[in-house]
């Protein structure tokens, strides 16, 4: 294969896999006569999406912005906390167990309490998206800092660099590929968080749409909602991937570009 062909194939791959998946799903549904109420066929879901794209779009946009707001907060907070945890063994040993504990707790148990405090609407969705998604960023940033090579550390110390300078000039750039890796996990969690919050209370977003569709036994619409979330997830991922490609080129040097 020439380089050009490879590049084209790489661009086509996601679509190919997607097509294979959907066709397989469709055929499986047909072959096993799966009732629509359990698992609608993709063709049915597409039908619903085409029919109701305007409603879906409106609800999507509501979900999208709460998710992004929560995600941005998660990045900022995750970076800061990661820096703190990675920089000091005391913060590490003091906070890590608590962070684990907090994250092992299903957020669905906490969202109602959040809503009692924050009211119902966009705010609890943003907050849920935030609290559910910051942890992966923390662990990767902290690991990036904790594993800075002692040679680099010595270099910075010999220049009289402050802790903070070491972090920003060495820790962060060095951990950049992993920071982006964690963003991939984080953004999916942010979606889960805001959709979760929308199902717990309020009349907005894809979460509400899906819940009320499922209360009506309207599986096709519920799945259309799932598709919409998946699509938004991919969109945000694509945006991140673009930035990633520019910022981590050094780390995949000599590798076929991705």
């Amino acid at each position, binding site marked *: 294969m020439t380089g050009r062909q490879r590049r084209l194939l790489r661009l086509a791959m996601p679509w190919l896999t997607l097509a294979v998946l959907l066709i397989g799903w469709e055929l499986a549904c047909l072959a096993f006569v799966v009732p629509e109420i359990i698992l609608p066929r993709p063709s049915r879901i597409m039908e619903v999406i085409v029919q109701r794209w305007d409603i879906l779009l409106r609800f999507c946009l509501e979900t999208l912005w709460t998710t992004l707001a929560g995600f941005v907060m998660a990045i900022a907070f995750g970076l800061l906390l990661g820096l703190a945890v990675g920089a000091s063994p005391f913060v590490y040993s003091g906070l890590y167990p608590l962070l684990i504990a907090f994250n092992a707790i299903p957020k669905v148990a906490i969202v109602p309490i959040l809503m009692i405090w924050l009211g119902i609407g966009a705010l609890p969705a943003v907050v849920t998206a935030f609290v559910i998604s910051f942890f992966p960023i923390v662990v990767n940033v902290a690991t990036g800092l904790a594993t800075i*090579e002692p*040679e*680099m550390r*010595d*270099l*910075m*110390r*010999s*220049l*009289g*660099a402050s802790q903070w*300078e070491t972090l920003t*000039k*060495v820790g962060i*750039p*060095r951990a*950049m590929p992993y920071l982006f890796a964690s963003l991939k996990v984080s953004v999916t969690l942010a979606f889960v968080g805001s959709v979760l919050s929308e199902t717990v209370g309020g009349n907005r977003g894809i979460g509400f749409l899906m819940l009320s569709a499922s209360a009506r036994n309207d599986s096709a619409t519920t799945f259309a909602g799932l598709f919409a979330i998946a699509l938004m997830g991919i969109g945000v991922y694509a945006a991140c991937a673009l930035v990633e490609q520019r910022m981590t080129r*050094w*780390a995949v*040097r*000599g590798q076929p570009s991705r």
Partner: protein
Amino acid sequence: MASEPLVELRNVSLAYGEGRERMVALGDATLSIEKGEFVAVVGPSGCGKSTLMKLVTGLLPPSTGTVLVHGREVTAPIPGVGMAFQNSTLMPWRTTRDNIMLPFEVVAPHKHRLRRHRAEYEAKAEALLASVGLAGFGDKYPWQLSGGMQQRCNVCRALIHEPEILMLDEPFGALDAFTREELWGVMQKLWLERRFTAVLVTHDLREAVYLADTVYVMSRRPGRIVKRRTIDLPRPRTLDTTFEPGFVEIVHELRERIQMEHA
């Protein structure tokens, strides 16, 4: 040399590891370095030269003994040092120019001025790169340079902010003889202009004698200082100097002392 020394090591020793792992890398070193002195350290591989450098700059705390700088005991890395480590520590995410400019971003007077005087600082970096034969490589990343080029960058980074104390750990080991000798000249010129204090670790005795005021010879591990030799050849020294009998004799003298360690 009656003035107070800049750096003083008193019976300093250093052991790495603990318990069964414990290994003495440097044993009982006493030496003092004047302000503006150019010191060279030679000795067999693994004798503790790099360790000594880290002790002098406070990067490592001594196991026993004391390290004094300006008469005060050192507990943290001392500021105003330029260090070229033995394994080049260039950052792969920065271009060569940005790597060299790192000290400007961190060291005190420069870091506040960098924003507004960026062009001026960049010109300085370019000039330094050119002086070591790397003109035009500023935009390359370190992993796009050859081994010898990386090493030259590494030295540039130690020099660029004109530190008072310069530590060079085998700075020219990966260079061919001619490039190396050129750089001796560059280094000597800089030293004559600025009179910084320098410590050079090297395996090349001609290099040591060419550049240094004082050469210390270390024994095998655990390293002790077994010889101190002042070089009072006149400055500036040139490549011709290196063929003069006085020069060759000192080199031989040092060579013989080291050979004793290998017996």
